[in-house]
């Protein structure tokens, strides 16, 4: 690395810090003025970088990197509100609880949820049911359909799980196929297997 590029790298780093400080100040002012409709942060996790987004009502979206974080922010802008800002401070609770979960120290989440991205009453019931499947347990799509008084709606349960905007927090990874195979997952079936293995080892 030449002296010139070292200097410009240092200048870039300074410029980034300055920008981050400006953005943090804007996010705080927007929050105080009631204008921060969607706050987001990108969190490190063993399942890769996670996009976490929250409205004043609660956490509204958790997305894996393979789902495309930019596309997810555009979806939030279109379906919830375009007043979206990066505001990691507003996601502190979510970040802490996810860290504890991945370290094996947390078996359930205590977070208000905003189901703005869940369309239809049945899908809302499925997502709410997902939060009640115990840590380390699994249920099949068909079982859940029965529990929700819709026997025969296993496919609809599958769709609701596939579209679950709050993976991990609403544990769709604990829902498996009737034959016991793992089935698909928004974060990839490898991640689903990793989460199930982590939970069964506890």
């Amino acid at each position, binding site marked *: 690395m030449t002296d010139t590029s070292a200097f410009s790298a240092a*200048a870039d780093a*300074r*410029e980034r810090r*300055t*920008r981050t400080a*400006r*953005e943090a*100040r*804007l996010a705080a*002012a*927007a929050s105080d*003025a009631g*204008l921060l409709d*969607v706050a*987001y942060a990108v969190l490190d996790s063993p399942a890769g970088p996670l996009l976490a987004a929250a409205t004043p009502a609660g956490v509204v979206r958790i997305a894996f990197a393979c789902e495309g974080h930019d596309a997810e*922010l*555009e*979806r*939030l*802008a*279109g379906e919830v*509100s*375009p*007043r*979206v*800002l*990066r505001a990691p401070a507003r996601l502190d609770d979510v970040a802490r609880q996810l860290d504890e979960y991945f370290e094996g120290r947390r078996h359930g989440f205590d977070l208000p949820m905003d189901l703005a991205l869940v369309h239809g009453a049945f899908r809302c019931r499925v997502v709410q049911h997902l939060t009640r499947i115990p840590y380390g347990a699994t249920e099949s799509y068909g079982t859940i359909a029965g529990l929700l008084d819709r026997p025969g709606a296993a496919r609809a349960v599958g769709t609701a799980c596939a579209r679950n905007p709050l993976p991990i927090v609403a544990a769709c990874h604990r829902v498996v196929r009737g034959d016991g195979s793992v089935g698909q997952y928004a974060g990839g079936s490898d991640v689903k297997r990793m989460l199930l293995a982590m939970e069964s080892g506890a």
Partner: protein
Amino acid sequence: MTAIPFSEVVERHGPMVWRVCSAVTGPVDADDAWSETFLAALRAYPRLPGDADVRAWLATIAHRKAVDVVRARGRRATPVAQVPDVVDEAPDHAPLWRALGRLSPRQRQAVVLHHLAGFSHAEAAAVLGISHDAARRASADGIAALRNDMTRDET
């Protein structure tokens, strides 16, 4: 209704807004004007038509907010008072800040909009609320004055 997240607008236009603000307020008060600009923009953003020119819209708000900040402080714009860290550690830029501070406010704004923010003279004129000719003249006079000033500084 737009589907571009506001965070993307800040990312894309943040540096331009800072240049416009700092040209009016000087670097010390530019952060205040920058925040005020994006806060006002955030408030109005959901009602912005999808085909709006976001860059010109933001430059207009930035110009107005920067003037407000200067007025609220009850003093003339003083870009010479102090330079921020980023500029501080690039010593080559300090004489330029001082020279910019010695321009008339209109010349300074016209120069920054055209040469730093990349606006056409017509776009700069719309932001400043002056005629196309006046914007072109203010920019040319400003550059001439800067060149004069900087050359004198070196000798």
